[in-house]
């Protein structure tokens, strides 16, 4: 029965083809450093899922942000676990994405024909850092407030337009509820949408071109 359902679906959706193309690809003999991309993808999905769950209770207003997180941590069943995974997963994701970049660089995997994979990877690395920067403000505690004060102040050191950039980031001259709301929007909509799109291109190219083998002496 199960096999008949599968065949019915397979004939229409091409599941076997998808499996063969995406998972049953021929790959050179590689090492554990080649798992960092998959690890990054896994962490992105993990951050996405735990983030969706946090959004059930979190409220991005200056009045509610801190209290709603206290509520998640102390009152909601397993709230500490879901926020803990999101919190530690964030640091881990920055680390893993960065190591993935180093692996690509040192194995020279960014060269022809993989330049676009590399370029989308650059966007993904920067977007991941952006997620860290915007997410850091959301607890609206002292550390978040002053970290964002400093971060937006640093952006202001850009010549000529620095002051303008700071005001755009903050949504005004001061760090306020406007800042919190726009950081939240960027954190849960703008950057995740960008990351998802870039991951789509990135993985399409990995499947289309295949992965590099480990460079040998003399390469």
């Amino acid at each position, binding site marked *: 029965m199960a096999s008949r359902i599968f065949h019915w679906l397979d004939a229409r959706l091409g599941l076997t083809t998808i499996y063969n193309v995406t998972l049953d690809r021929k790959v050179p003999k590689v090492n554990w450093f080649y798992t960092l991309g998959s690890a990054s993808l896994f962490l992105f999905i993990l951050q996405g899922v735990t983030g969706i*769950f946090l959004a059930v209770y979190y409220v991005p207003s200056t009045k509610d942000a801190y209290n709603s997180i206290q509520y998640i941590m102390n009152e909601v069943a397993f709230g500490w676990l879901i926020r803990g995974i999101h919190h530690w997963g964030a640091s881990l994701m920055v680390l893993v994405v960065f190591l993935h970049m180093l692996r690509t660089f040192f194995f020279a995997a960014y060269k022809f024909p993989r330049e676009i994979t590399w370029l989308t990877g650059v966007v993904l690395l920067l977007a991941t850092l952006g997620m860290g920067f915007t997410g850091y403000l959301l607890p609206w505690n002292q550390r978040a407030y002053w970290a964002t004060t400093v971060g937006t102040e640093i952006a202001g050191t850009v010549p000529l337009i620095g002051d303008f950039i700071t005001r755009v980031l903050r949504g005004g001259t001061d760090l306020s509820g406007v800042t919190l709301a726009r950081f939240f929007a960027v954190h849960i909509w703008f950057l995740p949408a960008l990351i998802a799109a870039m991951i789509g291109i990135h993985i399409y190219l990995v499947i289309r071109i295949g992965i590099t083998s480990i460079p040998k002496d003399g390469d």
Partner: protein
Amino acid sequence: MAESSELGRRQFVKVVLGAIGALMTAVIGLPAVGYIIAPAAKKQEGEAWIPLGPLENYPIGKPTLFNFTRSKVNGWEKTVNSYGAYVVRYTADEYKVFSNTCTHLSCRVNWQEDAANFHCPCHDGIFDIQGRVGGGPPPRPLDEYETKLEDGNLLIRFVEA
């Protein structure tokens, strides 16, 4: 090839993977469900005697509304809910206190002086001066508060649902 009665290597790997997968789904899924339903699982109960003032302040034969508020904590916020109680004195010592919450779908009923009944504006539920259903969709009479008199002061027993 493994014999059919034996557990082959591939079969063994499939079973182990399936079991680990099921375990992981449970470990991840159960906390997720608990996380979502946590506020619903928390029962908030409380009761209090609410003083409505001296009984003699309430006119005989004319239902009079007494408004009061009760606060409780929902999530991280204090929520203040308004309640209304209709004090109905039939004679000098005979009285009842009704909740003004319609027993149909919880809109608030009003005493209509000219029609001499309680009317619910949402779906035209009607209750008479005894709180009995006089028409419309309400399934049962108006809820009555337990009352007591202390030194001529009327009190009702409020129970948090």
